[in-house]
């Protein structure tokens, strides 16, 4: 019997830390472990007893890459429970902020995390040093527009300080936001070049079946609002999230994986899911970018098409931000009064890397009694392993180095944010 082990001690260019162990006996994968050694931080536990007004400052600390997603999910959920009516302008400013986060996160992924894979480099720094400086600089320039817009609205781009239950502690002025018009217009022109750049990369194909899940919204491409849907026709809402999906405990694993409660099957959240499920509300340049980057026809369930979906959503974020900024008038006053009431606050929003679910049970004076947070990466984890099991057998004849690279590419399709995934630890799965 021939035995071969492939160890990837640190999965590079992902957010947070994880490792992968694969064991191959007689040409078959007999063991595959995606080990997550990110230590537990116990957010849900220490949220208990805190005042609701502190939640928007606590939860962004789960993830430095998508802090706005955490803030928005908590804020919308609590406002829904407290029956707070915020003006339309507040919603618009929140959408601009969310667009800015998608823009920076997607451009970070495409240029700094994923592109080096397809060009044979270790990093974007090496890419820049070896002939791709204009492309890397373009990516960083686009990303900077998102970062700067987040800072203009939130005070800083990592862990913004102005979002709060009821609105914003300060609303950006029209002048401050209109200053971004020119840069956003330039970015919109450049995003099509990024789409062509992505189209020219040698990206593998992996046309396997899968059930993709995201929020759906008939009027606006979903960020802060929408019900849930899947590519196999399931529909549900935030209020039933914990009935429809379930976090299960796998044998020999301390990890919690999300599956559908009825079929126990895994699902896949993220930009590709959103794009497939919300084609009707895709903006014109985004549609063009998608077509150029390999997403001309839907459905497209190939996880490697996620790159194209990220580029399309970047275009969409720019178009949406531009549209909203051109008509922008600040909400006045920037926040409305909030009176807490007892009950359960459940909400979903679309973080750059997929659906994020929060629930807070609150007492009469606004103290958090229970908290539940299901980040996109822990929802994708089981599906990530399934993809590895299906994809790696086709490349087993390659060297360990190439096999490692292939495995990392499959993982990176999900743009996993291991820091976010408060719910998983060491993974140790064995299936016969």
């Amino acid at each position, binding site marked *: 019997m021939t035995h071969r082990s492939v160890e990837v001690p640190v999965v590079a260019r992902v957010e*947070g830390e994880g490792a992968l162990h694969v064991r191959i006996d007689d040409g078959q994968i007999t063991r595959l472990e995606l080990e997550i050694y990110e*230590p537990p931080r116990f957010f*849900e536990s*220490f949220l208990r007893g805190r005042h609701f007004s502190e939640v928007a*400052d606590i939860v962004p600390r789960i993830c*430095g890459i998508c802090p706005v997603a955490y803030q928005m999910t908590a804020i919308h959920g609590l406002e829904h429970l407290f029956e707070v009516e915020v003006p339309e302008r507040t919603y618009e400013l929140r959408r601009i902020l969310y667009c800015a986060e998608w823009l920076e996160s997607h451009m970070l992924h495409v240029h700094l995390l994923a592109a080096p894979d397809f060009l044979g480099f270790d990093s974007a720094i090496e890419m820049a040093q070896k002939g791709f400086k204009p492309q890397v600089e373009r990516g960083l320039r686009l990303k*900077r527009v998102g970062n700067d817009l987040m800072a203009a609205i939130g005070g800083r781009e990592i862990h913004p300080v102005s979002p709060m239950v009821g609105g914003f*502690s300060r609303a950006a002025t029209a002048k401050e936001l209109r200053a971004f018009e020119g840069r956003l217009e330039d970015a919109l022109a450049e995003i099509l070049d990024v789409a062509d750049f992505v189209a020219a990369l040698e990206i593998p194909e992996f046309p396997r079946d899968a059930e993709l899940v995201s929020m759906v919204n008939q009027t606006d491409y979903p960020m802060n609002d929408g019900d849930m849907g899947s590519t196999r026709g399931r529909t549900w809402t935030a209020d039933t999230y914990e009935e429809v999906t379930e976090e299960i405990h796998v044998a020999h694993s301390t990890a919690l994986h999300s599956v559908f409660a009825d079929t126990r099957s895994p699902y896949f959240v993220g930009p590709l899911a959103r794009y497939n499920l919300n084609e009707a509300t895709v903006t014109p340049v985004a549609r063009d970018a998608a077509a150029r980057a390999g997403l001309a026809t839907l459905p497209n369930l190939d996880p490697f098409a996620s790159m194209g979906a990220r580029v399309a959503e970047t275009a969409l974020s720019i178009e949406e931000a531009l549209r909203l900024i051109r008509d922008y008038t600040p909400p006045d006053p920037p926040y409305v009064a909030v009176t807490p009431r007892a009950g359960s606050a459940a909400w979903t929003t679309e973080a750059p890397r997929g659906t994020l679910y929060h629930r807070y049970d609150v007492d009469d004076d606004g103290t958090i009694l229970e908290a539940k947070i299901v980040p996109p990466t822990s929802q994708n984890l089981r599906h990530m392993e399934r993809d590895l099991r299906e994809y790696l057998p086709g490349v087993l004849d390659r060297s360990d180095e190439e096999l490692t690279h292939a495995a990392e590419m499959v993982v990176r399709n999900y743009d996993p944010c291991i820091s976010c995934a408060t719910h998983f630890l060491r993974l140790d799965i064995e299936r016969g």
Partner: protein
Amino acid sequence: MTKPRVAVFKMASCDGCQLQLLDAEEALLDLAGAIEIVNFAEATSHVEPGPYDVTLVEGSVSTAEQIEQVKAIRAESTFLITIGACATSGGIQALRNGTDLAEHVRYVYPTPAYVEALASSQPIAEIVPVDLELTGCPVDRGQLLAALAWLLQGSVPRPPTTPVCIECKRRGYVCVVVAKGEPCLGPVTRTGCGAICPAMGRGCYGCFGPSQPPNTDALAKRFIELGMSPTRVADTFRFITGYAPAFREAAERLERAEAIT
């Protein structure tokens, strides 16, 4: 001259501080010309073993394994910089310190036996000597890049320890305590962020940790006069950098006072 070898490591944290390096964008490419990044998992697959001339560590020490990891990193590093609230004061996850770890584990994980974590989330300097601490949640990008630039010139940077209040006065921001009657930790929190919370019309919540010297008791008294309960005031100190000694002790004094009355 050989370029300084720089490594970036992460313990328990959100990635936000090392993201400040990736967010430096153009400066990152310039920096890459002046230094050699030999270990930075979030940015590159290229990994070289130590020793390192300058090492940046984000995150708190949260597991037994990390104690050993931090010791090994220290042994390999000439100049060790800890970056951010987690690395310098245990981070928000230090809210578990002094409470029942088993209860937190039970609440979040269904099979507590598998979960390995220390009872306390600790700053790196509680385990090994640290050459420079850059506080903040996240660390300020300007301070971080300036620190690297100083080191490249052979100097050791000294970030300010004056309070956010001074920053507000310099910038002409309206005081949120005086004008709005809102609690603000600006008088006892060190500057570095640019006083962004008062700029955004709200109170500071202490991301950069205690200033020197922090008169926390006087501020606590003021918050109570504003109508907050001592328990809520204690919570205000016990937050992002709540395990920093000055804030921890302020919270403990408030709770003792509450227990007496």
